[in-house]
């Protein structure tokens, strides 16, 4: 019997597999590109689910009263912080998305620069994020 | 221990070995719509042809004027006149055609400005019968073997051929089945490495292409799988091995590990230095210097070391200088060399010279064949082909390389003889319609493969052995290197014969520790070692018998070539008791159409 990695479904078994080193592909070294992609995937999903909630909220807030009430809730600092989180997620996904597009179309993945490019992206992302976050923090 | 399955399959042709030679043969038989099985110990692209670096000789005349007859002359002279000239003519004449065919199949040759294939200078290749250096080796940067093997393999995947060729990768060939009365092969026995179990292939014809076997030397350029099983299968079946004493030592193996630095480095202008920083090849080959044929250069290096001009703390190697070629040139034409030197000895060869030493590399000898790549017996008067048995590539000996192979002639040999074997085999089956050897199942298990199955069962059921296989192997490598290497002398070779008796006795005590059937590499290594013992045996005995110096066989006690007494091939056989029988067979000096090249003193 050969071990087939991708075909193990049950969670408990997965934990055992991890323990036994059977699922060792998860233990692959987290290279730059992998981390960037993982976050891209997570942020993408967060964004689309945020969009679902956001749109649903706006739709239900059709009267001036409910709207004002909601705005009042949103004035709560907790939501302000969450909003910065949203900006974090969105700016990450946007900047990294651009990097992906450049990799596909503009040869941003030469052997000489593929790792460097990911680091450059982190710098750009940091700048974009901070630039956007400053006005938000100021309003806290 | 569980039972060992025996499975049986029938094919038109079985090819043992999927290196360049085996694949070239498969292209021919598959192309003729014959059901072909290619049995190989490793996946085809893992065969050792992949390591070849330098290039392939052919008188294409892309760089300068060139004719096949010049190439033939070089080959005859390089082989120290013991090569069979009919085979050599066929070989060099067909070279350009073969290369062009390879190109058509997609081989990515390096190119020159006008779009033709690039050719580089290589050792022993001259123009106009030795006048000046020839640029004859078509190359694919320094990955020619890789490019060639992949191209041939890709060709067998082509939709025209693929349906007829079945690959049996990771099947270890063990035994050649011969019909003793008719003296023809009926198939082979192989061990299925992945699942365990015996696999018997029955076929009209068997083609051997199992490649080299210098794993019995301490420093060698060969892959771990090059253990000469083809020779051993033939020896066990009572077929002779021709000229096993001619073992080529490549001048430039990386010091300490043996990995090869291609002669192409010297072809492109690199040269050898001794400890004093002298270009010592001036003394040994005043005309072509470092591009003399390999035996000459290796002997030169060995002489320097013997006379105390070796490099390093042990004064046991030389240096190969190529930094003067320039960084860009090296990176363009020799990138693989840079990588090897950098990885294995930490030398950046664009700045520093590479430490090198002569390294066991290639067997000129092999399973005796004629021009048609048919395996032959010697009946005392003439060579008689064995119907349905063919051999090609390094394991065969036609002999196109004589006593010493020239660089880049081997890759050519693979394709030319490989295709020749495939084509003749196909012609024989299609035109002469032999009867299929078809013994019933129980008959087979009992009669044909019984010995080997019992032996394997013995390993599984037996103990773990009292002698470690690796101790024997390590010792074998040391003693072979010591006693049967570049310079040979009677006492040492005789001592090696005794050693071999000892190893054989010890080998009987070797047992199997891994009793699993799945991917049992230990079992394979036991057979590897057995095979190397056979190979060493014939090599040593033949070297002991040949009392002259010729080509790669260089005896201190008989330093001269002796055309009167020794212008003949050695045919060695091993009988049931393990004794070596030697016969001598005349050289086929008459080419097909060209005039015979008469032996001359060999100077470079």
């Amino acid at each position, binding site marked *: 019997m050969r071990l087939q990695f991708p075909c193990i479904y049950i969670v408990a078994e997965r934990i055992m597999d991890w323990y036994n080193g059977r699922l060792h592909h998860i233990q692959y070294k987290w290279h730059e590109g992998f981390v960037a992609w993982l976050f891209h*995937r997570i942020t*993408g*999903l967060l*964004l*689309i689910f945020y*969009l*679902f909630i956001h*749109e*649903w909220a*706006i*739709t239900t807030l*059709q009267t*001036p009263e409910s*709207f*004002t009430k909601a*705005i009042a809730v949103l004035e709560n600092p907790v939501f302000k912080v969450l*909003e910065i989180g949203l*900006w974090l997620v*969105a700016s990450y996904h*946007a900047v990294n*998305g*651009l990097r*992906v*597009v450049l990799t*596909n*179309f503009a040869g941003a993945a030469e052997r000489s620069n593929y790792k460097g490019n990911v680091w450059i992206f982190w710098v750009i992302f940091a700048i974009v994020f901070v630039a*956007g976050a400053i*006005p*938000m923090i100021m*309003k806290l | 221990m569980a039972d060992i399955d025996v499975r049986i399959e029938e094919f038109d042709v079985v090819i043992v070995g999927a290196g360049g030679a085996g694949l070239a043969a498969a292209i021919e038989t598959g192309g003729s719509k014959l059901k072909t099985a290619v049995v190989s110990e490793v996946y085809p692209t893992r065969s050792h042809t992949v390591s070849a670096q330098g290039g392939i000789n052919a008188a294409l005349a892309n760089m300068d004027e060139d004719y096949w007859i010049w190439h033939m002359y070089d080959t005859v002279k390089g082989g120290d006149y013991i090569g069979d000239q009919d085979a050599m003519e066929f070989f060099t004449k067909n070279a350009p055609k073969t290369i062009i065919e390879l190109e058509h199949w997609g081989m990515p040759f390096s190119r020159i400005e006008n779009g033709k294939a690039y050719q580089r200078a290589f050792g022993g290749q001259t123009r106009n019968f030795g006048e000046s250096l020839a640029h004859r080796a078509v190359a694919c940067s320094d990955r020619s073997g890789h490019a060639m093997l992949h191209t041939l393999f890709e060709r067998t*995947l082509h939709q025209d051929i*693929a*349906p007829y*060729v*079945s690959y049996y990768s990771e099947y270890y060939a063990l035994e050649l089945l011969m019909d003793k009365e008719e003296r023809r092969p009926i198939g082979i026995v192989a061990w299925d490495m992945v699942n365990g179990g015996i696999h018997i292939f029955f076929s009209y014809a068997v083609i051997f292409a199992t490649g080299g076997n210098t794993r019995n030397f301490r420093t060698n350029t060969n892959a771990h799988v090059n253990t000469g099983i083809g020779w051993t299968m033939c020896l066990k079946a009572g077929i002779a091995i021709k000229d096993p004493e001619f073992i080529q030592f490549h001048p430039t193996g990386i010091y300490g590990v043996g990995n090869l630095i291609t002669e192409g480095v010297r072809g492109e202008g690199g040269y050898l230095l001794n400890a004093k920083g002298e270009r010592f090849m001036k003394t040994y080959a005043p005309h072509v210097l470092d591009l003399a044929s390999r035996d000459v250069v290796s002997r030169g290096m060995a002489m320097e070391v013997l006379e105390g001009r070796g490099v390093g703390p042990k004064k046991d190697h030389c240096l190969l200088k190529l930094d003067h070629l320039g960084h860009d040139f090296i990176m363009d034409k020799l990138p693989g060399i840079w990588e090897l030197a950098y990885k294995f000895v930490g030398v950046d060869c664009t700045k520093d010279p590479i430490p090198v030493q002569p390294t066991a590399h290639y067997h000129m000898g092999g399973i005796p064949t004629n021009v048609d790549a048919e395996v032959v017996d010697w009946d005392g008067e003439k060579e008689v082909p064995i119907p349905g048995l063919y051999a090609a590539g390094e394991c065969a000996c036609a002999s196109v390389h004589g006593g010493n192979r020239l660089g880049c002639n081997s890759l050519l040999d693979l394709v030319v003889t490989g295709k020749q074997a495939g084509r003749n085999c196909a012609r024989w089956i299609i035109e002469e319609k032999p009867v299929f050897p078809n013994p019933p199942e129980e008959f087979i298990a009992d009669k044909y493969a019984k010995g080997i199955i019992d032996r394997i069962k013995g390993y599984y059921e037996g103990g773990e052995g009292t002698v470690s296989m690796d101790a024997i192997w390590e010792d074998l490598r040391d003693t072979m290197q010591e006693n049967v290497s570049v310079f040979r002398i009677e006492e040492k070779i005789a001592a090696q014969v005794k050693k071999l008796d000892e190893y054989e006795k010890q080998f009987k005590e070797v047992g199997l520790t891994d009793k699993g059937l799945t991917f049992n590499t230990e079992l394979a290594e036991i057979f590897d070692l057995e095979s190397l013992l056979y190979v060493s045996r014939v090599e040593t005995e033949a070297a002991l018998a040949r009392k002259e110096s010729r080509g790669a066989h260089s005896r201190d006690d008989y330093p001269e070539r002796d055309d009167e007494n020794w212008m003949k091939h050695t045919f060695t056989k091993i009988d049931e008791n393990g004794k070596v029988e030697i016969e001598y067979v005349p050289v086929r000096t008459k080419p097909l159409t060209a005039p015979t090249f008469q032996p001359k003193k060999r100077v470079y």
Partner: protein
Amino acid sequence: MMYMRGFIDRYQGSAKSGEWNWLLQRVSGVALLVLLLGHFFVEHFVGHTGLTYQAVAARFASLGWKIFDLTFVVFALYHGINGIFMVIEDYVHSGWRVFWKGFFWVVGIVYLVLAAITVLPFKG
């Protein structure tokens, strides 16, 4: 190599090659870069304190903003749901794949309608 036939067919000549999805993912992504920044800027930076129903309603009332917002929603929904499809195709190989893809098709359409009925009726 005969046994390969079926295997090869799996890859050859499939009408649904996914190249459109891939390309549009990138195109919509780049478009979103502009739209999202615009949207975020307007909603969260400009006149945040004045975020009242009236202000929002007034903005929604103008045709330009209607188009802007609808384009944004369409692109974001396409891009986001297509992204979800990509994730599904990566990880779900059983019959559930059809279910989840269908589910998100429905979700997508529902949200498109929702967006339309939210944005379009504003008259200021």
